[in-house]
């Protein structure tokens, strides 16, 4: 039997009860659109919150950790070589945090095909001078171009122009909390004291707001060369190499590989920020559960309407079977009815879901910690549309399958005799 003819009969039966069919399709459309907008909103929020930390965190960080020597003197003694030794006399020395041969390492890492980019960094402990008070702080020396490209640095600079950091020597971008305490504005000169005791004047070229208030009270940024000057180090001094990968999930393997290759400490993002993934996935699961419940409820709507249709169209089914339509043909007809309600509802739902998302996207959402966010975040990922439409089709197929089976089992003799 041709699909065209099956669908023609299905269409005629559908039109005979077009109001109920429409209600069923609207039910599907409603649940699909809510599913899409709910998940898009939830995922947008997840990305925003995760981004607060994950955007700022390199996938792999190479650095020199301060660690005690693995081999203590007693281990070198042949007599005690195979003993368990408790005596550990050598403490960590005042070892340098400098990464040796940093330029060669950077070149090597850059040439790796898994890597998007590399950003060197160094950190200096300083004091911000406020009159006679000295405030603890951390100044990171960064390559602004790479930071903007890899870690969305520009999103967090709320005032001033971040490129001035590169163009102007002895410039600084202050954390928002620091700037407020120091009453510093863009263009002002502030004084800091380095760990070595020297005082340095720096020009404020911007204010930085990470969204984490505690961080903004201590953290400031300057260029690498300025930071090297603050520390009194040579122009090759770098304490961190930050690596961003194309695929974040490769980070633990890459960290291990680079760690042993360069004989250096390497930390991956999963180890550094395990808790964020957990939070995101739990939120996602909850929203998927709600969305799928909506779809199942709409499936019951279709089930009811098809059952009703079958009771009303007993005569039609009986006559089709009497004239030679097999039970399987009748089943196909009713599944076609169900699927056409499901698919039209799903397509309408996808469109309305997009419009709902647009609507949520337009609602103002201002928060002090996120300077560049003005409306509710929405993720317009195609995967939500695909999941919603796929799930709607599966649900409506099942909702149609049971009534269709019932219809296919109708005995025409009983119906025709019953008249």
């Amino acid at each position, binding site marked *: *039997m*041709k699909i065209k*003819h099956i669908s*023609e*009969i299905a269409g*005629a*039966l559908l*039109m*005979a009860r077009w109001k109920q069919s429409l209600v069923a399709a609207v039910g599907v459309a409603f649940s699909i659109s809510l599913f899409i907008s709910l998940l898009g909103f939830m995922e947008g929020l997840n990305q925003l919150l995760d981004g607060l930390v994950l955007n700022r965190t390199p996938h792999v960080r190479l650095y020199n950790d301060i660690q005690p020597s693995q081999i203590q003197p007693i281990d070198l003694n042949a007599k005690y070589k195979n003993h368990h030794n408790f005596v550990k006399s050598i403490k960590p020395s005042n070892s340098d945090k400098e990464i040796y041969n940093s330029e060669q390492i950077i070149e090597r890492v850059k040439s790796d095909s898994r890597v998007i980019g590399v950003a060197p960094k160094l950190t200096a402990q300083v004091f911000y001078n406020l009159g006679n008070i000295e405030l603890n702080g951390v100044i990171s020396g960064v390559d602004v171009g790479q930071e903007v490209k890899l870690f969305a640095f520009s999103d967090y600079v709320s005032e001033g122009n971040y490129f001035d950091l590169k163009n102007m020597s002895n410039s600084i971008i202050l954390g928002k909390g620091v700037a407020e305490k120091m009453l510093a504005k863009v263009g002002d000169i502030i004084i800091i004291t380095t760990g070595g005791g020297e005082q340095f004047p720096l020009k404020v070229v911007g204010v930085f707001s990470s969204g984490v208030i505690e961080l903004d009270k201590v953290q400031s940024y300057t260029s690498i060369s300025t930071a090297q000057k603050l520390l009194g180090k040579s122009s090759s001094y770098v304490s961190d190499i930050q690596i961003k990968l194309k695929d974040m999930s490769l980070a633990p393997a890459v960290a291990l590989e680079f760690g042993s290759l360069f004989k250096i400490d390497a930390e991956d993002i999963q180890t550094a920020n395990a808790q964020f993934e957990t939070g995101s996935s739990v939120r996602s699961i909850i929203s998927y559960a709600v969305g799928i419940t909506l779809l199942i409820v709409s499936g019951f709507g279709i089930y009811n309407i098809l059952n009703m249709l079958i009771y009303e169209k007993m*005569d*039609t089914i*009986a*006559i*089709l*079977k*009497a*004239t*030679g*339509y*097999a*039970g*399987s*043909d009748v089943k196909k007809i009713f599944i076609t009815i169900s699927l056409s309600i499901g698919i039209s509802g799903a397509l309408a739902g996808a469109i309305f879901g997009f419009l709902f998302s647009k609507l949520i996207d337009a609602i103002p959402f201002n928060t002090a910690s996120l300077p560049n966010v003005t409306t509710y975040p929405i993720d317009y990922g195609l995967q939500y549309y695909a999941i919603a439409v796929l799930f709607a089709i599966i649900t409506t197929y099942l909702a149609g399958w049971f009534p269709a089976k019932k219809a296919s089992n109708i*005995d*025409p*003799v009983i119906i*025709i*005799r019953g*008249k």
Partner: protein
Amino acid sequence: MDKNIVLETRSINKSFYTPRKIDILKDISFSLNRGEFASIVGKSGCGKSTLLYILSTMDTDYTGELLIDNESTQNRSDVQLAAIRNEKIGFVFQFHYLLNEFSVLKNVILPGYKLNKLSEEELETNGLKYLKALGIENLAHKRASKLSGGEKQRVAIARAMINDPMIIMCDEPTGNLDNKNTDIVFDIFKELTAVFNKTLLIVTHDLSFAEKTGRIISMDDGRIV
């Protein structure tokens, strides 16, 4: 075996078991030849409709043997039986049973969709041809629900013809028609056997109608007498 036999029954028995065993049909054996115009008559409740549903392959709950076109219908699946009904048997019911959702022409050609031997255009041409032969060509594109009783019955006959079946079975085809329409339907049946060489089997309790047919099979209390 005579090649002209299109339908044959061999000692068909059927009983209802609720609430206790009642024999509806007892040892029914007869055969119909090609081109025969036969009617089954009998009192209400003598089992003639039940017999027709068994002959139509819709009811399979019986003992005995039914051969259509010299092929046994025993131990066939639902799909196979449906295919036999579709190809070899045409149906006309007492209450016409048109599908109100469709036009007259669509009603006529629906069984053709299932048979799937002819294209849609060919089916429509054939459908119009039969409607023309039945004198209701002008109604082809009306909705089935808008027709009068006599017209509906003629549409049902056209539908029974569409797959060019060997045998057409009718259950009280004139049961709720007036005399004028009954005569029209009879003339059509007569023509079907004479011109199209169809076998007709008509269940009726209208004796005057039955007397005009070529062969009368009388039933009483589940037996052929």
